[in-house]
C-alpha cells in the first residue's frame, strides 16, 4: 500500500509541468546561469586587471628608477611634485591608478647610505578601484623590490652575499597532500552549504503542496476514508517527498558541476577545484549518500510536520520560513569555521550533517563521527515521523 501512495505522489509531481519546472528545471537552470555568469564575470575581471596597463605618475623620479621601469608593463608619466593635489584628485576619480612620490634627495640619500636616513617612497592609490589596487600591488611587491635589488647590487656589486637562503627555488614536491584532497579542500568551502540549502529548498516547494495543499483542497480527507493506515499515508508522503527533494538536489548539483568550468573560482573561494582531481572511494560516496539521505529525511520530516499542522499552504509557508533561516545558518557554518570540528557538533541535528559533508570532502570524517551524526539524524527522523503520524490521527488537525 505504501508503494501505491508513493507512486501517486510521484505521479502528481512528475506529470505536472509546472511542478517539474519549478522543482527541478528552474533551480538547476538558475544555479547554472548564475554561477556560470558570476564565475565568468570574476574571471573576466581578473583578466581585465591582468591585461590593463596602469597609468602611474611619478614625482621626483630618480634616473635609475626611470631606467628600471622602462621595461615594465606600466605607463609612466613624470610630473612635478607641485601638482600633487591635482594628481590625488585624478586617483580619486580613477583617471590615474598610482602616484609615486620619491623624496627630493632620494639618490643622494641612497649614495650616502651610511650616514643618511633611509629615504621613504610614498605610494598613493585608491583601494576602491580594482586597477588602482592592482597597480599598487604590482609596484609595492614586484617593481619597487626589484628596483631596490638593483640599487643594492650597484651599492655592493651584487647581493648574493646578503642572501642567506632562498625558498622553494628547486623543490617540485612542495605540496604534501593526499590525492584529491586539495580539490576536496576547495569544494568543502561552498559545497556543503549549497547542498543543504538546495535540499531544503527542493523539499520545501513541493512539500507544502503535498500535505497542506491537499488539506486545503479537501483531497486529504478522501484518502483518510480508505482502509489505509494513517502511518502508511504519512510515510508515503514523507518518502515520496524525500525522493523528489533528492532528485531536485541532484539536478541542482548537476548544474553546479556543469558550471564548474566557469565557476570554479567562485565555488572554491579561490582554492583549486577541478573535476579531474575528484577521486573519492566507493565508501566515501556511500557515506556522502547516507548523510544526504538522513539530512533529506530531517528536512522532509520538518516540512511535512509543519504542513500537517498548518491549515493552509500560506500558513505552512509562514511557519517554515524561520526553519529555512535556521537551515541556512547551519549551512553557512562550514564556510565560516576552520580547524578541527569538535565532536559535540556531530550531536547537533542538521549542523552535524553539514560538518560531516565538509569533513568527508576533506577526507577527515571518521567512522565514529559519521556514526554519531547519522544516528542522531535517524533518531530525529523517527521522532518527526511519530509526530507526523500523531498529527495524521488528530481529527482537529486533519479536518481543521
Amino acid at each position, binding site marked *: *500500500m505504501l508503494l*501505491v*501512495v508513493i507512486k*501517486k505522489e510521484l*505521479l*502528481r509531481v512528475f*506529470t*505536472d509541468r509546472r511542478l517539474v519546472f519549478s522543482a527541478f528545471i528552474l533551480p538547476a537552470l538558475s544555479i547554472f546561469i548564475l554561477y556560470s555568469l558570476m564565475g565568468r564575470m570574476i574571471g573576466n575581471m581578473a583578466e581585465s586587471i591582468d591585461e590593463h596597463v596602469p597609468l602611474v605618475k611619478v614625482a621626483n623620479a630618480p634616473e635609475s628608477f626611470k631606467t628600471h621601469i622602462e621595461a615594465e608593463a606600466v605607463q609612466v608619466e613624470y610630473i612635478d611634485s607641485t601638482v600633487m593635489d591635482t594628481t590625488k584628485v585624478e586617483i580619486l576619480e580613477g583617471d590615474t591608478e598610482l602616484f609615486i612620490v620619491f623624496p627630493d634627495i632620494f639618490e643622494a640619500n641612497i649614495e650616502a647610505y651610511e650616514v643618511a636616513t633611509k629615504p621613504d617612497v610614498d605610494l598613493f592609490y585608491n583601494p576602491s578601484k580594482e586597477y588602482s589596487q592592482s597597480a599598487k600591488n604590482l609596484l609595492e611587491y614586484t617593481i619597487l623590490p626589484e628596483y631596490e635589488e638593483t640599487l643594492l647590487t650597484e651599492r655592493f656589486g651584487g647581493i648574493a652575499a646578503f642572501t642567506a637562503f632562498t625558498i622553494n627555488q628547486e623543490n617540485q614536491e612542495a605540496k604534501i597532500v593526499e590525492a584529491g584532497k586539495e580539490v576536496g579542500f576547495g569544494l568543502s568551502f561552498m559545497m556543503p552549504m549549497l547542498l543543504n540549502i538546495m535540499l531544503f529548498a527542493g523539499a520545501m516547494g513541493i512539500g507544502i503542496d503535498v500535505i497542506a495543499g*491537499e488539506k486545503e*483542497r*479537501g*483531497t486529504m*480527507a*478522501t*484518502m*483518510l*476514508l*480508505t*482502509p*489505509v*493506515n494513517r502511518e502508511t499515508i504519512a510515510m508515503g508522503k514523507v518518502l515520496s517527498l524525500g525522493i523528489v527533494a533528492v532528485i531536485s538536489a541532484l539536478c541542482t548539483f548537476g548544474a553546479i558541476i556543469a558550471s564548474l568550468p566557469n565557476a570554479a573560482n567562485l565555488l572554491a573561494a579561490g582554492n583549486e577545484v577541478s573535476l579531474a582531481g575528484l577521486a573519492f572511494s566507493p565508501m566515501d560516496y556511500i557515506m556522502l549518500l547516507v548523510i544526504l539521505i538522513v539530512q533529506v529525511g530531517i528536512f522532509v520530516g520538518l516540512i511535512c510536520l509543519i504542513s500537517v499542522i498548518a491549515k493552509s499552504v500560506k500558513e505552512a509557508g509562514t511557519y517554515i520560513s524561520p526553519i529555512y533561516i535556521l537551515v541556512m545558518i547551519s549551512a553557512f557554518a562550514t564556510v565560516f569555521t576552520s580547524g578541527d570540528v569538535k565532536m559535540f557538533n556531530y550531536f547537533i541535528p542538521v549542523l552535524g550533517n553539514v560538518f560531516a559533508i565538509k569533513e568527508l570532502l576533506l577526507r577527515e570524517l571518521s567512522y565514529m563521527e559519521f556514526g554519531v551524526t547519522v544516528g542522531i539524524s535517524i533518531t530525529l527522523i523517527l521522532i518527526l515521523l511519530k509526530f507526523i503520524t500523531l498529527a495524521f490521527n488528530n*481529527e*482537529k488537525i486533519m*479536518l481543521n
Partner: protein
Amino acid sequence: MIEVVDFSKVYRLGKKQRSELKTQDKTKKAVDHISFKAHDGEIFGLLGPNGAGKTTTLRTLSTLIKPTKGTLIVQGIDVTKDEKEVRRKIGFLTNELKLDKHFTPAYTVEYFGQLHGMKKEMIKKRRQELFDYFDITEFQQKKIAELSTGMIQKLSLVVSLIHDPEVVIFDEPTNGLDIITAKAVTDYLQHLKASGKLIIISTHIMNVAEKLCDRIGIIIEGKLVAKGHIEEICAELEASNLEDAFFKLYQTHHTDVMKGAI
C-alpha cells in the same frame, strides 16, 4: 446494520471559533446523546437544519472523527475499535471531500480502488460498470480539472462506491447538483437499496427525505427529537406533511431567540 447508542460529540472551541460563535463556552456539544438503528436494504435519513449535528454523526460513523461518548456500530464493528474494517465496509461521500483535479477519472478511481485493497482486474470491471452507469466513460482520460461540476460530483460518487461498500453514507447527496445529476444520484441510491445495501443520508431538504427515505431521524441542536417512518411521525404530530411536522418539532425543541418568529 448501523446501531448508534447514546452518542455524543463535544468539540473544543478555539479563540477564533468562540469569537465566530459569539460564546464564552470553551466547548460545543454538536451531538447530544442520540440513538438510532438503520437496517440493510433501507435508506435512513437524518433530517435537520444546518449545524444540527447531522454531518458530525455521519463523520463519526465513517471514522473521520471519534465519538466523545456512546457506541457506534457499523455492520457489527465498533467504529472506535477497528476503524480500518469499518472503512472497508462503508462508502462515504460529502461535498467537503474533493478529488485531485490534476489526475484523470480513470487513474483516480484506480488509485482509490488500490487503497481499498482491490485487485486490478476487479477495479477495472467495477470502474467500467460505474463509469457506464454515470456516463463518465468518454471523459475517463480527461483531467478532472476539465470536467463539469456535475461530472466531478458523479466521479466522487464512483470513488466512494468503487469498493462496493455494504453501507453507503451520503452527506447532503443532492446538494449543489444540477437536476440531471441529482436524478442520476437518487436513482442510483434506490438501485443500491434494491440490492440490499444500507444507505444513510443527511439532508435539510424535505422533498429529498420524503422521496428517498424509508425512515428518518430528525436532529435539532444535536438531539434526536423524532425517529421512525415519515407517516408515523406526521401522524403522531398531527402534521399534514413532513415539512409541517419538522416545523412543529423545531418550535418545540429550538432554544434560539428566533424561536418565537416561527
